[in-house]
């Protein structure tokens, strides 16, 4: 019996270590963002803050176009997510449920894109976007993000559609519904859980992406949030308070989203891998 209790204690020590490991950096960012400068720049910072100062949060919005950066990220990530779901769900439906030649070829093409190193197409994509006058525009980021998130979306959704009973389409056909009608009215509503999961993954990817955003948006008024934060560091000073405040501002909504939708997100993340 004693032996069992001891094991239980060790187990819970392990649990605490895991919790601290995963949460401490975020906790530390929150704490740093609300410290008065004198305490922020101390060689022995207290692990728990005693004085609070929200000046960093004010500075982020008054000294920088951070509100605009948040708007840019919201527009880009939101549009990419919606368009990716529209384009991806019809393609996934075709792959899962329609008969056509070259299906395997299409699937290989799509999955190949998911293995593309982004940097490999960076230079040429910049030239192409430049020739279409899409540098420093929203579509200049939205279109690349759609392409990068389509593979996972299609893969996950086609698994979803495949599991639906064929009788659904047959019944709709007998009722005189066309292919589009069947897809739109019967199939898509049933796929809402899959759409939510893949939509969240697409949104988080687009919200967080850095390399393309850094390259294709070259004026501060078009920066997305990650690029804006990376530019906070100046030549002489690193405004740590502001960096931490901005980090908390853009991470908080993601953390809330993750806590609300954790089951959906986990389902989306693991769908391709475990089933495939």
């Amino acid at each position: 019996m004693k032996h069992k209790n001891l094991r239980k204690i060790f187990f819970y020590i392990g649990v605490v270590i895991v919790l601290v490991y995963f949460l401490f950096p975020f906790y530390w960012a929150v704490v740093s963002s609300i410290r008065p400068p004198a305490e922020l720049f101390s060689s022995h910072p207290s692990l728990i803050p005693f004085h609070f100062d929200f000046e960093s949060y004010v500075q982020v919005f008054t000294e920088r176009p951070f509100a605009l950066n948040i708007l840019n990220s919201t527009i880009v990530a939101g549009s990419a997510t919606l368009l990716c779901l529209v384009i991806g769900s019809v393609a996934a439906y075709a792959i899962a449920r329609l008969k056509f030649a070259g299906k395997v070829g299409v699937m290989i093409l799509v999955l190949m894109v998911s293995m593309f190193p982004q940097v490999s197409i960076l230079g040429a994509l910049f030239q192409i976007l430049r020739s279409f006058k899409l540098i420093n525009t929203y579509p200049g980021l939205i279109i690349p993000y759609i392409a990068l998130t389509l593979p996972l979306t299609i893969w996950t959704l086609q698994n979803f559609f495949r599991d639906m009973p064929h009788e659904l389409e047959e019944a709709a056909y007998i009722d005189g519904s066309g292919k589009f009608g069947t897809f739109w009215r019967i199939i898509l509503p049933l796929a809402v859980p899959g759409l939510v999961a893949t939509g969240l993954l697409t949104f988080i990817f687009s919200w967080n992406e850095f390399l393309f955003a850094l390259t294709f948006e070259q004026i501060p008024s078009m920066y997305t949030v990650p690029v804006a934060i990376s530019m906070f560091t100046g030549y002489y000073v690193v405004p740590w308070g502001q960096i931490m405040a901005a980090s908390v501002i853009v991470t908080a909504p993601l953390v809330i989203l993750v806590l609300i939708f954790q089951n959906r997100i986990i389902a989306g993340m693991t769908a391709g891998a475990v089933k495939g």
Partner: protein
Amino acid sequence: MSKTKNDPLHKSDPYYALIFIIPTLAVIAFVAFWPLAQTFYNSLYKSALMFPQNKIFVGLSNYGALWQDPRFVNDLWNTIRFTAWSVGIETVLGVLVALMLNKKFKLRGLVRAAVLVPWAIPTVVSSEMWRWMYNDNYGVINSILMSLHVIKQPIVFLAFPSTAMPAIISVDVWKTTPFMVLLILAGLQLIPEELYEAARIDGANAWQRFWSVTFPMIRPTIGIALIFRSLDAMRVFDIVFIMTKGAANTETLSVYNQWTLFTRGFIQPYFGYGSAMSVMIFLIIGILAIFYVKMMKIRLD
């Protein structure tokens, strides 16, 4: 299910399939395949990004120059080092935490949610958070190590080759272990309880049960997680760019490539050379991917 050729339900499939597939093909052609072909074309020229009209055809010589470039070879090695360490550590940690979460205990839901937090935080943000914690004057890591008398002087972690790469690897491990945990946990939950009972009846202890029941059952999942993660780690850019910009011998291929294309190759004639590097990175990762797919015998249909 009867699906003959004359079945009206499936008769017009190819027509609709085409309409349903075309948007996807158009987008990936525009964003992936056209730029890839263009990159290869660019790699055959000596040119600068801002002066595309002044290009000189040089054939495949940029590729030869690549392997004569000590910085490229060194960065390839750095990238492999980074990938091996971070994916290796993540896998071990991932299995441990997944085994923990596969047990029923109080706080399990909380731990599972906490695990997702590093995954959801933008990489730029997590790199900044850790850069602050690693700070030599005000960083919490130096402060704790000094309070515990592990070190006498603060360490400038990101300035020395011996500490900078491990520091960067530790950020990647923190950020991507959650992916491993959740994938492996999903694999663990597919193992039927009867297998454990049978092993218990046979008198197997916990260690033996892990190696004879658990591990063989989650090996395919670990394999797939390894593929995803190592292809990802080979492309690492954000963490290195934010934390050191490649200083202290931490430069990886993507960082060197981005710099060659957009800083060095902006007005100097190195854009073509950078494009050759891009193609080479594509080939290295492509070969790795094909090797993995063959090894795992993944079915595509």
